[in-house]
């Protein structure tokens, strides 16, 4: 039974994992902050239960699908067909009442459906019309993803909704605008909608696609075989449909005299957030986390505190979740966690490392050494690549990151995983290398 009294804003909870004990003179406090949001019970997501909305008010979401229609999509022709089928599958996954639009992208952005600077409201009829419109999609032209994003932003802004989400599909490099143009477009769109990015085939640039997803707080992935697009698009759209609250920020308060060394998301993927801070009142700052459905993410917070004597205790940081409002105070989401520092002369207490902190420190290093190893490999530095990827194999093996271990095994021959002894494979499929690079930031959680 639906619970009508519950709001559709999910309940957030914050758990802090840390070893708060510092030795005499210790200054660095590390903590893993697990943020979990649980949806409004049986109400579920904003779009899953549209009948619970007051009449006249639709589900609170809008999505824009941006499909690459550049000339290269015709080589091979299965790519365009795959993209069309995938977009159709994604449209089928759009729930009734959600606003949506389809954009065809070349060196300029074209509205494919519904057109006229509008968004369509999903129902059986509009979904069918949209799929009909996809047939008109043909390949020809260049690639300027920044223009697609700006058009998506304009269209999504036309609806009065909470959740705004985009999906970008590209098969090639962003060749018809400068990197600065794309950067400017991403800056303009950041915080206005979230966006997943997918590369199809192997002719696209991993850093461009992951850069889009990172800036717009979405996911990035490779779909090497166009036939796999439909399943991926359906899944992406379903995830988007599960989002319940947008523009959530992780707010960090720290006392006078402390410095934040870094803040990063460490699960489900590694995402550096340190430089994305927005000041929010005295000694507090907000870090963007995008939109949330029923999910759980982990953040690694590292704070430097002033020294204090044995037996002293202080609050190193207070972590909470808020929805910043452009005008007026942010809306708090209720949950908060405390990161503490306690100085002790008990060496056993102060020298132990919290297993969560240790685990995610390893996962962050894993993502980093994969990146460095692949860069070294591209640069022809065989020794450097072998060392870095060997370390990656070791870390993946120790932490039980089986997915990443499998991907690594396609790029290197593993001689001794625990010791990190590997040989670079002489011949590596381009798709395998791109998959490893795209997915290098995926982490696994601590085994409980």
């Amino acid at each position: 039974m639906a619970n009508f009294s519950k709001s559709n804003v999910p309940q957030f909870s914050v758990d802090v994992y840390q070893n708060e004990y510092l030795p005499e003179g210790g200054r660095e406090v590390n903590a893993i902050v697990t943020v979990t949001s649980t949806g409004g019970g049986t109400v579920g997501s904003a779009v899953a239960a549209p009948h619970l909305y007051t009449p006249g008010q639709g589900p609170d979401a809008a999505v824009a699908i941006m499909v690459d229609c550049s000339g290269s999509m015709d080589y091979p022709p299965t790519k365009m067909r795959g993209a069309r089928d995938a977009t159709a599958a994604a449209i089928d996954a759009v729930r009734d009442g959600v606003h949506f639009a389809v954009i065809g992208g070349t060196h300029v952005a074209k509205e494919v459906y519904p057109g006229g600077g509008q968004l369509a409201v999903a129902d059986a009829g509009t979904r069918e019309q949209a799929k009909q419109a996809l047939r008109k999609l043909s390949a020809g032209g260049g690639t300027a993803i920044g223009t697609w994003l700006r058009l998506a932003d304009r269209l999504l802004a036309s609806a009065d909704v909470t959740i705004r989400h985009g999906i970008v599909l590209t098969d090639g490099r962003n060749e018809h605008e400068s990197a600065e143009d794309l950067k400017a477009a991403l800056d303009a769109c950041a915080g206005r909608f979230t966006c997943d990015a997918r590369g199809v085939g192997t002719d696209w640039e991993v850093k461009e696609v992951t850069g889009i997803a990172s800036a717009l707080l979405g996911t990035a992935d490779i779909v090497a075989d166009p036939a796999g697009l439909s399943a991926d698009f359906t899944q992406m759209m379903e995830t988007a449909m599960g989002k319940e609250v947008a523009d959530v920020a992780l707010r960090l308060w720290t006392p006078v005299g402390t410095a934040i060394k870094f803040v990063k998301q460490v699960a489900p993927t590694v995402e550096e957030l340190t430089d994305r801070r927005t000041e929010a009142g005295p000694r507090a700052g907000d870090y963007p986390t995008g939109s949330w459905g029923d999910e759980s993410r982990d953040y690694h917070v590292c704070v430097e505190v002033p020294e204090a004597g044995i037996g002293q205790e202080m609050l190193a940081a207070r972590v909470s979740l808020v929805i910043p409002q452009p005008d007026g105070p942010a809306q708090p989401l209720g949950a908060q966690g405390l990161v503490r520092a306690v100085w002790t002369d008990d060496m056993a207490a102060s020298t132990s490392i919290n297993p969560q902190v240790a685990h995610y420190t390893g996962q962050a290093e894993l993502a980093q050494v994969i990146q460095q190893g692949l860069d070294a490999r591209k640069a022809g530095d065989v020794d450097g690549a072998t060392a870095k990827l060997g370390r990656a194999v070791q870390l993946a093996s120790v932490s039980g990151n089986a997915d990443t271990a499998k991907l690594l095994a396609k790029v290197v021959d593993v001689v001794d995983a625990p010791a990190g002894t590997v040989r670079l494979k002489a011949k590596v499929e381009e798709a395998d290398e791109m998959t490893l690079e795209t997915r290098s930031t995926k982490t696994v959680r601590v085994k409980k």
Partner: protein
Amino acid sequence: MSQMPPALSKCPSCEEPLDSGDRFCGACGYDLSAVPAPPDDNPTITMNGTAPHPPYPPSAAPSVDWPIAPETDSSHRPAPVHVPSEIQGTDSAGHELPAHASGVRFDGPPHPDEYTLQAPDPRTADFVTTPSSGTKVCVACRAGQVDQDGYCENCGHAQPRERDHMEQELDAVSAVSDRGLRHHRNEDAFAISSTALPDGSSAVVAIVCDGVSSATRPDEASLAASRAANESLLEALPRGTHPQQAMHDAIIAASRAVNALAGAAPAEHAPHQNAPACTLVGAVVTPTLLIVGWVGDSRAYWVPVDRTSPAARLTEDDSWAAQMVAAGLMNEAEAYADERAHAITGWLGADAYELEPHTASFKPDRPGVVVVCTDGLWNYAEAAEELAQVTPLDAALRPLHSAQVLVGHALDGGGHDNVTVAVLPFPAPSMGAGSA
């Protein structure tokens, strides 16, 4: 200091009184330089048959010439070795799970993740003078206000919790409790009160409890035990129950109160936790009688007003050291120098062995004071003579001041543990002042 042992008042072996400067006992010839100096810190620690963890920090561990590991065969292949990283971590603190032998409590440094710091307990609020209402200002930076979690909103420093330092003064008894310098919270608790016996004479009560750190929620255990024992005495004494019987019943009541806490434990942590536990020592002073009762290693001492007559310890610890001495296996000095000395063999708590409340009744023939304290004090003044030396001469007249001085002595000595002291002058005023 091994050449000149700390001035002993009597021979550890035969109890013969000694002069300062003696190197051997005049009666039995015991080599006094062989008496090991007591360790700085005397945490109440493990006694489960296995050797306890050495207390050295890794850096202070003696350097050792490790033998070369033998090869397993003759082919010059090194023996297989285990690298620490090969072993998966176990519990959340990365330790092996401790194997607690039932029957003994460990009061060593607790595993850091076993408990979280407690918020100030509002129930203790009536023990302290409430600070002026209105905004609280941080004690560390004096600039920020204190948030509802007890931290400064400016510099983040934790504010003293209500139980960090508690003092209470009644007409005929006073008590002081302090967190000490090394522990981050105060797990001791006390309760003092006075009441009237049926004949109108007054009876003064002091109860002191020390939470067992390795148990969960030791601070709650000590608080519950001290309150329950105090209430039980306040009810029984005016009815004419013999004070010694009343003390016995009070310990039973305290034990029930601590046992009840175990049932209320949050279930999610259950496997890791052991039941809340604490020690208890109590004293009842009437115009003619002095009753003490205890379980565990908290103590009561008798310090006469006339210091020419001897001071005395009134309680016998439920501890490893006391058992060793009682069994004649070690002399007192050796036993207390051992790191197992403070492992207690009796306590209040749901997982205690059969509860054995000890009570004793005395009829002192001269005035004096009873010092009721936790090991946070007697670690720094173990022998009755030592304790008498640090007790102010006017203790009977100014009990609160004396309790403060004694707590100060423990803090000056290093304050390694929570310290709680109650001072009761004997005899109690014969004309009861009624309950305070």
